[in-house]
């Protein structure tokens, strides 16, 4: 485990998919050794931001710095070496479907070390136990529920004890008890590795309350807020208030049923058939 603390700073980043810009002039700082949560509406570009940080999408302009080092100025090789220090949980787990859970979790160790099989399997089982899946070690990802896949993805992300951990919605699709356990796991990881920088994308205000030390809020690809949890709760920006109070937008309410009368008639014909 690396003892360096890595902060992440993003400077006027523009990026997205090809010519489709998702993030526009986005700047933010994720302090070293803290848990940063990223909040934002569905589709506002949180996953895209993670993909840009991970080098899976190329930014059109702007700078990304890990521990003061600009990744855009690095060669591919240097960046790949840097990325070894990252653990990543993808939004839908992204487990390899042809491997069992234990094999999936052990994969980074299998591919990068010469340890004997037995040691690798034990490491995988212990990590799976942390996320409560040790009984499912020999199941394939296709045989599991969405929440279980996500937990297994988290196990794979932390098996290398990375100094930087990215989690895309670790608690969505989980029941309150398991979600609380995942949050606690992140906090425990933090307690074991005080230098670890954790970036958690989430919609779950409960887990923001529980784990966040630093909060970023995205709105339509721009930064809408950056600061501590307390500052967020004290903010009086109407958008943030709506977000925190789980308030809907008046203009998006359903004023009348969306179906046309002709569609409804056609449907009732089918229903009465």
């Amino acid at each position, binding site marked *: 485990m690396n003892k360096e603390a890595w902060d992440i700073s993003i400077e006027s980043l523009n990026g997205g998919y090809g010519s489709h810009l998702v993030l526009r002039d986005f700047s933010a700082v994720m302090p070293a050794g803290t848990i940063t949560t990223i909040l934002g509406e569905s589709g506002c570009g949180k996953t895209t931001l993670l*993909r840009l940080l*991970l080098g*899976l999408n190329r930014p059109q302009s702007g700078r990304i710095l890990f521990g003061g080092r600009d990744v855009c100025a690095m060669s591919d090789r240097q960046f*790949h*070496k840097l*990325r*070894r220090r*990252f653990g*990543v949980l*993808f*939004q*839908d787990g*992204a*487990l*390899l*479907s*042809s491997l069992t859970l234990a094999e999936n979790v052990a*994969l*980074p160790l*299998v*591919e*990068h070390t*010469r340890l004997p099989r037995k040691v690798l399997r034990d490491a995988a089982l212990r990590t799976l136990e942390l996320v409560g899946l040790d009984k499912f070690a020999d199941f394939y990802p296709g045989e599991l529920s969405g929440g279980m896949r996500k937990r297994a993805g988290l196990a794979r992300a932390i098996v290398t004890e990375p100094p930087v951990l990215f989690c895309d919605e670790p608690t969505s699709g989980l029941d309150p008890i398991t979600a609380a356990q995942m949050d606690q796991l992140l906090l425990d990881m933090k307690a074991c590795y005080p230098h670890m920088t954790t970036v958690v994308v989430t919609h779950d205000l409960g887990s923001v309350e529980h784990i966040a030390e630093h909060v970023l809020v995205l709105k339509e690809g721009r930064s809408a807020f950056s600061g501590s949890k307390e500052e967020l709760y004290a903010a009086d920006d109407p958008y943030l208030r709506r977000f925190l109070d789980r308030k809907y937008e008046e203009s998006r309410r359903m004023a009348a049923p969306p179906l046309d009368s002709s569609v409804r008639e056609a449907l009732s014909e089918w229903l009465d058939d």
Partner: protein
Amino acid sequence: MKEICAPAIALLHRLGDMACFLADGFRQTFRTRRLAGKVLRQVYVIGANSMFVILLIGLFTGLVLGLQAFYAMSMFGAQGMLGSLLALTLIREMAPVLTAVMITARAGSAMTAEIGVMRISDQIDALEVMDIHPIGYLVTPRLLASLITFPLLTSIFTVIGIFGGYLSSCVLLTLNEGRYFSGIESSVTMDDIQGCFLKAAVFAVIVILVCCYQGYNAHLRKDGKGAEAVGNATTSAVVMSCVLILVADYVLTSFLL
């Protein structure tokens, strides 16, 4: 002018991309950990799983060739040549080409679909962020396994085809079995067999390159997204492999003869 050049440039770009993909596939041989196990698994997937089809196709190809050649040769009273005709046809053309086409249909399409699904479900991205080279992990083992299995399956095809020819011309029809086998022995040379293996190896590279490349780039397709893209990638992988096998066969044959 620009409109005329654009497709040509796009094609050139793609060919270059494929060449880089292939070069990467071979280069990763020296960088991939625990490669032997992965290659062995692929030998099983590509080789053992295609064995039955190859046996079946080989047998019937031999049977039909034997039958046709017997009647054609009878017209000239040259039945003694049947063995050599059949063996040379099989070794030089039929076995390498049909084996490659059958493996494309059996294992190549599955390969494209598997890699394509991995691509659209972020699994390849996950490999990348774990610093596992996706080409080294997915393509290199298949490439090496195919270089083992294609020649082996081609030889099996040839042997079973010659046996099929024997069945139809000597057992079912009236050809003397000594004449059949001595015809084979006297006409087949080492060069034919080397050429056969060379063809099998070249076809192996073509099939794996095309099938893996199509799956790997399924997310970039213009003719569909998601599951549809994987389906289209599989179709074009099979079609493109088959066409390229026949083109390469012509080119190789013209050099070997």
